[in-house]
Structure formats: structure tokens, C-alpha cells
């Protein structure tokens, strides 16, 4: 493959479900082409009908179409040697990514369903979820969740932490390993370039504008 194509909404489910994969591809020096789907076009139904589960994102890798954001992340993980060095690391990476996904689901629920009423409670409860990742990061000592190089779980965690820092800029203050992780990931040259880009900065995190 030389270049991936991605289809995504412009305004709905924007960075949220695509963020981690973009950061990963950027960091891995993998070029990709983004096709932004206008919501009005989406509602016409033609493209939706061609999507296996009627959803985006879609990744086209050569002639091969893949849906489901976590399936895409894993596929990229396999392609870019970001799935651990052996079966044991792979299992631990899966475990971490599933844990991140649980946190992302809670975040998305708050953002879309309970932002005004639930934001403060969510922020207050957040340390109870972040402490697990802090413990793993601190124990591993490499600056990554598993092993000594970034896996797709790291990109997923990084992206979710970036979004949480927008929600509450002090949320990592009591988690030194996570804070350092975010700083180090952000400073990786290709990630820094991507995060500084107009392409990244212009996309809202969430489709309803809340963050």
C-alpha cells in the first residue's frame, strides 16, 4: 500500500473516533488521504448503504475496505509493528486499549448526553479511571503502556487524554506518569507537526461542539 483513504464526517463524530488513528498514521510516517463526508450527503443514504454497518469511519487500504474504528486501529497496529513484540505484549496491549475504550465511551456519553448536568461529576470521578493507566505507565517505566515502543493502545490513550485536557486542563496534575506521557508523545516530531497543523486544529473534537 502507499496511501490510505479515509472517509469521515466533517462535523459529526469528528476527531473523536478518528483521532487516534490519525495521530498513529502521522507518527508512523504513513501518508493518508482524507475524504470528508458532508452530513447532508450522508443522510441521502447512498454512501451509508455501501458501508457494512452503515457507519463511518471507513479506511481503504488498497482495494480493501475496513470499518469500525478499533478494527482500523488494530489493522494499523499490525501493519506498523505497533502491536507488541510477542503474544504476551499483544494481549497486554489489547487489554490497555479496551480500558481506554471504556473511558472513551464514558466521555462520549457525558459529552453527548449529560454535558451541562454531568460535566462536573465526570471530572470529579475522572481520577478513579485515570489511576489505572497511571499505575501501568509508572510500572512500565519506558514511557509507553506496554513494551518499549508505542502501540496502538498508546495512540488511543494519548488521544483520549488530549481531549480530557481540553475538558479540564488540570486533570493530569496528580498523575505525573500520564502527564509526562502526553508531553513526550506531543513532542514526537511527526506528532508535533500534525497537532500544529491546520488540518488538526480546525476539526472540532465532538460533533455537538462540546468539549
Amino acid at each position: 500500500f502507499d496511501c490510505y483513504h479515509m472517509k469521515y464526517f466533517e462535523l459529526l463524530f469528528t476527531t473523536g473516533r478518528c483521532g487516534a488513528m490519525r495521530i498513529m498514521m502521522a507518527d508512523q510516517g504513513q501518508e493518508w488521504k482524507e475524504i470528508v463526508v458532508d452530513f447532508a450527503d450522508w443522510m441521502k443514504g447512498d454512501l451509508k448503504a455501501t458501508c457494512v454497518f452503515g457507519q463511518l469511519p471507513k479506511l481503504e487500504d488498497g482495494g480493501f475496505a475496513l470499518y469500525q474504528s478499533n478494527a482500523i486501529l488494530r489493522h494499523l497496529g499490525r501493519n506498523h509493528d505497533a502491536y507488541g513484540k510477542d503474544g504476551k505484549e499483544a494481549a497486554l496491549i489489547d487489554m490497555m486499549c479496551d480500558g481506554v475504550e471504556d473511558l472513551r465511551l464514558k466521555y462520549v456519553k457525558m459529552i453527548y448526553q449529560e454535558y451541562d448536568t454531568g460535566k462536573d461529576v465526570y471530572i470529579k470521578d475522572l481520577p478513579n479511571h485515570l489511576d489505572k493507566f497511571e499505575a501501568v505507565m509508572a510500572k512500565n517505566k519506558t514511557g509507553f503502556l506496554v513494551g518499549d515502543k508505542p502501540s496502538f493502545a498508546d495512540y488511543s490513550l494519548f488521544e483520549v487524554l488530549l481531549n480530557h485536557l481540553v475538558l479540564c486542563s488540570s486533570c493530569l496534575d496528580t498523575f505525573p506518569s500520564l502527564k509526562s506521557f502526553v508531553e513526550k508523545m506531543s513532542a514526537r516530531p511527526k506528532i508535533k507537526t500534525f497537532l500544529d497543523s491546520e488540518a488538526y486544529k480546525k476539526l472540532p473534537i465532538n460533533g455537538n461542539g462540546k468539549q
Partner: protein
Amino acid sequence: VSLTLTYFPVRGRAEVIRVMLKDQGAEFDEKVITMEMWKESTLKASCVSNPLFGQLPIFEDGDLTLYQTNAIRRHLARKLGLYGKDQREAALIDMMDEAIQDLLNKYVKLMFEKDDSGKEGYLKALPTDLKPFEKTLSGDKGSFLVGDKISLADYALVILLIHHQVLSPPCLHAFPSLQSYLKRLCARPNLHAYFHSDDFKNRPIIPGKRT
């Protein structure tokens, strides 16, 4: 090398692990944790403080201890050759599995609701969720969701379909390919024996409540 599954005495999230191991003829031990034991919190606390997310199931494979049902499932799938024949099939299996998990999460949410008020709406929406799987399994391809061998995703779908038939016996009437798929998979000798066993039949789907 010994395999041990630790879980509550219900089918719940762990059943798909049992089904996979039983079908593959892989021996494993089970440690049963009752709700009373769980609430005593020493085990829960150790789940929280050492590995991670304060939840069951726990799976031990020799000296590797895993949490998160889907990480456990993927580990076993890699170990037992249930993850497709190449990376492309692995990615498609992940895609199918993510969609199955989406439906499973809806099902679990319904099961834990306080009353039956959501059931009608759920059953009305169900055909939309089942259609992509029906489509995948129809036509000349159809033995398994991906490729020509049973995978991670098939085990998840089989048990989900079985439990949906308990919820609503006619739910597959409009889906001939799903019906024949279910029949075929349940006729596999080890699965047939397991699904007819007291072990399976006497284990409630979820703790205490209605099926």
C-alpha cells in the same frame, strides 16, 4: 500450561470465552466468584490495585494474567488459530467483532434495566442490527463470518444469537442465513454437547434476573 477462568456463576461476559474453549477442546479450570465474595472487596481491590480495572473475568494462561473480556478472547484466538489466515482476515474479523460488541452492549444495557419498558423498542430496532450479519452470511460465501474457518467473531455471534432467541424466540424469523448459520454452528460436536449440558443450561445469563 494451565488455563484458568475466574468469573461469577453466570454466563454474562465470560460465556463467549467458555464457548470458544469448549469448541476447541481446550481444557480449563474455573474459579467461581459469588457476588458475596466479590463484595467482600479484597479480590476486587486486588483487581483494582494490581492489574487494572476492578472487573471480572480474569484469565490466567500460565504466568500471564489478563483482564478485559475482549483482550482475553483475542489472546485465545491468536493461541488457538481463530483469527483468520492473514492480516486482512484478522482485520475483517476485528470489524465483525466490533459490530457484535456494539449489539452486545445494547443487549446488556437492556438486560440490566429496571423493567421491561425498553424491550419493545429494542426488538423493533434489532433487525437493523442483524441485517449486516445476515448479508455477510448469505450468498455463496457464507459458512463463517470471515474466511472458511471459525473465528473469534463467530463465537461471539453464536452466543449472542442464542441469547436473543431467549429474549424473543421469533427474532431470527426474517433472517434465513442467520438461522442456518446458528444451526450449523450449534451442530458442531463439542458445541452441541456443551449447549446441551447442565453446566451451560443451569448457568443464568445474567445474575439473578430475568432472561
